[in-house]
């Protein structure tokens, strides 16, 4: 298993990559900045798994990212401490200098 590139506590930005085919990286988290709160096991990324490339697909570590709701939605009507967590594979994430 590859060593995860990001550590719990790291600040990351979700990339806004082209996705011609299948992905499970939601539009609303792209370009948004969040914090890594947990590691998930390495797995074949959805972009390959969707084509049944379970043996030959690219494997990457996954991460749980926590976003502040106000980061996701500039017009958020709840409270500033509200959050959302979701997961992303490594290639969707880039480091943000703190």
């Amino acid at each position, binding site marked *: 298993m590859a060593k995860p590139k990001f550590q719990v506590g790291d600040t990351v930005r979700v990339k806004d990559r082209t996705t011609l085919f299948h992905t499970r990286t*939601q539009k609303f988290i792209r370009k948004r900045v969040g914090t890594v709160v947990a590691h998930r096991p390495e797995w074949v990324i959805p972009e390959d798994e969707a084509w049944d490339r379970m043996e030959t697909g690219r494997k990457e570590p996954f991460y749980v990212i926590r976003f502040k709701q106000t980061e996701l939605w500039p017009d958020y009507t709840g*409270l500033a401490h*509200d959050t959302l*967590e979701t997961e992303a594979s490594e290639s969707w994430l880039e480091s943000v200098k703190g």
Partner: protein
Amino acid sequence: MAKHHGDGHHDGHNAFEVSSKVSEFEILELAVRELAIEKGIFSAEDHRRFAEWAEGVGPHGGSKLVAKAWSDPAFKQRLLENGTEACKEVGIDWLQPTGVGTPSDYTFFYVLENTPQVHNVIVCTLCSCYPRPVLGMSPDWYRTPSYRRRMVRRPREVLAEFGLHLPADVEVRVHDSNQKSRFMVMPMRPEGTEGWSEEQLARIVTRDTMIGVALPRADRTSDAGSLAEQVR
């Protein structure tokens, strides 16, 4: 489309014929199922058995998990550390009953513990991922675009529509199940349940409290009615 439905004077067609119309999705399901059966991937009997199982699973497994965790701190620890393994202690094996479940169906199960500071709620904005082995089939509303779209964007307003008004000092944390993990909320044990057995506790841990759109109460069970006699 609509003008062919239920107009009551179309060649004497009645409601029975209208309701027998098959959607494109159903045709697709049927075609894939028949192909799979022809190829010997599974038999019609396997399919029937699985459908019967899937439709019969309710939220009882989840209720049991929560009640046990409320009663047994060591189990709670195991449940929070490795949900999939801890499930086996109450007889839920995520790869059963088919024995052919793949890790891509449901792999990792995580229990989200509510605290006085954090209230968790689950949604799947991409489709309708749901921890079926422990909660059964998801409610219809859980799969609607309205719930999925709005729960991530305006969670407090959606929770209020369910009658759940959370205080301002509580952080609302939405979990969007977009990858391989499946989640279930472990609500806080309500007051007035001191000395209750696991069985009694399980009855107030309803489906909605484990999705996170409701809080358990000592005076409310999923089978409301028998409650009064239970508590007396």
